[in-house]
């Protein structure tokens, strides 16, 4: 029942939310239901992995062999937990922002939450596709309605990009469906396909799926929608996009593409990794030259996601473990970064790094918290990202799936250095130095923002110092994925 609740609560919350007239009650209502969803997700963690409460299966479209089946395993638990934590965090952090037609805003937010949950939970390919698209529609309206000046064009680009990707994936899904023995969309039947589908077919099928996931992550050269959309979206939606929705792409690789088409993944692994590497370097270099805070974080996100994608193609246990934990960490860290950017923008009315300076004197608490988040973002030891990146680097280095493992590892390591350069540079310019006319009036952050950033910082340190429980949590899933990807039946 738990997977159903994780989708149904935000879905109902969203649908009811449209009817709430008062914008403050709408805000509180969505926050309240988001917290309930979090509680359900946490309760799910306490259950045994094989508990029947973590599965759900019902008749859906009998004629097509599609069932409404959901399941929570290590991977989906991790990501639904991230989603369930992120939404209350986002809602609290942007609590003071006031929106036009606020009830629609919050209702759409909750609908997108339902869609994202569905993507992570579905174990039926058609259902997965359904949620994959449904998560997109509310976000499209959120960005286009409440975004910045150039929002319509930017969001439209985003929508078309992702729609092309998902339609290609649909063709792939139908192709696989027609090759299952009993014409079914079930994940376990898809997992049985790797032996029946010839390697040369796997090779082109790989691209149908990979393009869809690559656009979502985004991987070079499918990334051009991302900085524009992040820049133009309202802060809360940017957090959803970068914190959670990009994980849909990584999740797709881990749950669907890798295990179903291991030959295809192996054949194109180096090419895809090459794209990741190009994207990482490119994004890091571009990030160094950005004057806009939002664009800087956007490009840094491309670089980080590229590393995770690279680690998936390494197909070693240690790398996948790193990806798992890093997906969670990246979600938290980047949301925290966006919160800070949003705070600065709301107070100063600008995101231009060149116009800011000396904020540390005026807002010391903000400066300290941002410093920690930024250090986590560049993976300093003791922070959560260090654990993830260390695991990924050693995983990529020891990979047997590619002969370029040394090249990949060293180039990726260069990107970490680059990320240190642009992050520290940004902190220096924004928080230190002389205050100017604009930053003179700055005030420190409010209590709700302090609490949220405080919670994030605690999470950063807890996972950074004590990652073992999290690693054990995803161990069985990682092993399962690896046996499929490395043909170790």
């Amino acid at each position: 029942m738990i997977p159903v609740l994780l989708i149904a609560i935000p879905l109902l919350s969203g649908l009811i939310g449209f009817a709430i007239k008062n914008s403050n009650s709408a805000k509180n209502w969505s926050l309240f239901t988001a917290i309930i969803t979090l509680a359900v997700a946490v309760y799910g963690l306490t259950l045994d992995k094989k508990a029947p409460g973590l599965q759900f299966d019902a008749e859906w479209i009998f004629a097509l062999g599609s069932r409404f089946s959901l399941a929570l395993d290590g991977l989906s638990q991790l990501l639904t937990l991230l989603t369930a934590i992120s939404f209350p965090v986002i809602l609290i952090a942007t609590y003071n922002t006031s929106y036009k037609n606020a009830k629609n805003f919050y209702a759409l937010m909750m609908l997108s939450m339902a869609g994202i949950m569905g993507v992570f939970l579905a174990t039926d390919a058609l259902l997965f596709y359904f949620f994959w698209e449904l998560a997109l529609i509310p976000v499209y309206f959120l960005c286009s309605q409440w975004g910045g000046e150039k929002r319509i064009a930017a969001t439209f680009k985003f929508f078309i990009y992702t729609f092309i990707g998902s339609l290609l994936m649909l063709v792939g899904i139908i192709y696989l469906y027609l090759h299952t023995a009993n014409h079914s969309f079930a994940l376990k039947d898809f997992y049985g396909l790797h032996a029946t589908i010839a390697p040369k077919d796997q090779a082109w099928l790989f691209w149908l799926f990979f393009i869809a996931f690559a656009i979502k992550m985004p991987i070079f050269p499918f990334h051009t929608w991302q900085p524009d959309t992040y820049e133009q979206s309202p802060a809360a939606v940017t957090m959803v996009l970068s914190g959670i929705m990009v994980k849909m792409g990584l999740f797709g690789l881990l749950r669907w593409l890798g295990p179903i088409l291991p030959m295809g993944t192996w054949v194109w692994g180096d090419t895809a990794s090459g794209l990741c590497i190009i994207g990482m370097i490119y994004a890091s270099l571009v990030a160094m030259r950005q004057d806009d805070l939002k664009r800087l974080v956007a490009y840094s996100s491309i670089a980080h996601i590229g590393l995770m994608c690279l680690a998936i193609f390494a197909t070693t246990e240690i790398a996948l473990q790193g990806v798992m934990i890093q997906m969670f960490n990246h979600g938290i860290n980047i949301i925290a970064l966006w919160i800070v950017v949003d705070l600065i923008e709301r107070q100063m009315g600008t995101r231009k790094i060149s116009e800011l300076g000396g904020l540390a004197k005026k807002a010391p608490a903000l400066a300290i918290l941002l410093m920690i988040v930024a250090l986590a973002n560049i993976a300093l030891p003791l922070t959560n990202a260090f654990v993830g990146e260390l695991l990924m680097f050693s995983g990529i280095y020891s990979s047997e799936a590619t002969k370029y493992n040394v090249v990949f590892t060293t180039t990726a390591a260069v990107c970490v250095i680059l990320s240190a350069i642009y992050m520290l540079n940004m902190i220096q310019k924004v928080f230190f130095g002389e205050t100017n006319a604009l930053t003179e009036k700055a005030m420190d952050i409010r209590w709700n923002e302090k609490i949220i950033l405080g919670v994030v910082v605690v999470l950063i340190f807890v996972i950074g110092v004590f990652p073992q429980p999290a690693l054990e949590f995803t161990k069985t899933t990682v092993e399962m994925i690896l046996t499929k990807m490395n043909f170790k039946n």
Partner: protein
Amino acid sequence: MNAIIFSAIWGVVMMFSSAFLKNKNAIRLLAITGAALLLALNILELYQASQGVHFLSIDTKGMLAFETFGMLANTVAFASTLLFLLFSAKDIEEVGPNSGDYFALIFFVLCGVALVTSYNNLLMLFIGIEVLSIPLYILTGSSKRNLKGNEAALKYFLMGSFSTGLMLLGIAFLYGASPTGSFFIDDIGIGHGPVSPLFVVGLLLLIAALSFKVSAAPFHFWTPDVYDGAPTPFTSFMATVVKGAAFIAFIRLFADSFGEAQAQWQLIIAIIAAATLFIGNITAVFQQSVKRMLAYSSIAQVGFMLLAILSLKQIAQDGIILYIAAYSLATIGIFAVLGRLKDQTYEGFNGLAKQHPVLAFVSTIFLLSLAGIPLTAGFFAKYYMLTALLQTGKFLWLAIFAVLCAAVSVYYYFRVIQAMYFKEGVEQEIDASAGFKNLLIIDVILIILLGIFPQVLINALSILYL
């Protein structure tokens, strides 16, 4: 059988209605009642098909065959017509002074629809297509003082006559090529035997004529002008009911007669489908008028429907019914909204969401369905077509091409959504009664229902076979 006879009779009744009934409301009511009765009679016959009980039964010597597939197509067509009349009967009255005549013509078209879904003989196909087309030529030009309408009607008539001429020629060739010298669709196929040039020429001519009727490229040039020139309610009728019926005629002919000779024509249909998808979608992008955009988008949708003819599998036959239903529901709805707007360009939709949230919301669902977004009927329609195509094991390129074109279609459908929700517009008075809005909402509910449980329609099909 019920449908053919009843629609003809009711057409005559409607013709005389304007002479005897002075009250326009009564005429309108009569037309709507007729459509509802027609639907009910057809469903009754569907359920009784196995028992062989009909209200009227005339021995057609096997020239007509009332199979479940055709009857189900009829049901979809009549239900769409009923919905269409409920939405647009008032608009039809405003086209000209003799509303009774227009309704009469609509019923004659429906008679043609019932013929082309049940023909078993090429002569009946020809008669059906003519019965279907001639009233349409008149309806297109029904707004007598509208120059654009007159031009469209003449163009439609000339091109339409030419295409029926081609069809007749094709039928003659096929007759000559058939081993037994017969017009029956079961006999004109050549099986797996050697192909005679006569047969190929006849087949090509029929493909051309039917492509014209469903407005597939490169026989689509009449479509935008006619759809744009005709009064908006009739455009909606033409683009849905008539086009759907022509498709049923198309697929029945190819499934029953030419299924075994698939290798001869499959590539031709594939190229026509690809060209239709490409031209329809790309040209729709550049339109300024929403009505014209919908005309091109209807061409684009035809490209998807042609995939069913390419496949001819069971799933394709189920799928085409679902596609026609989904497409009709959405198109009739969006045309109903469009008909109420004064400015039928994209600007006319600006800011609609603020002033008329219900209209904007339902239009959004219609457009999402046309674009094929999940949770709407349009998604499963496209899904069935793609599955049918991939089941053939060939034409993967066409499947990928089709989805890329579908992605292009998002561009022009979403432009309307953007105009409604994200742009500021001027205040406009829209004559939308509560009843009209409720109907729109019912339409939306049907679309979403089919989008979650497409088997409702498909199962109806399989249950009725028993």
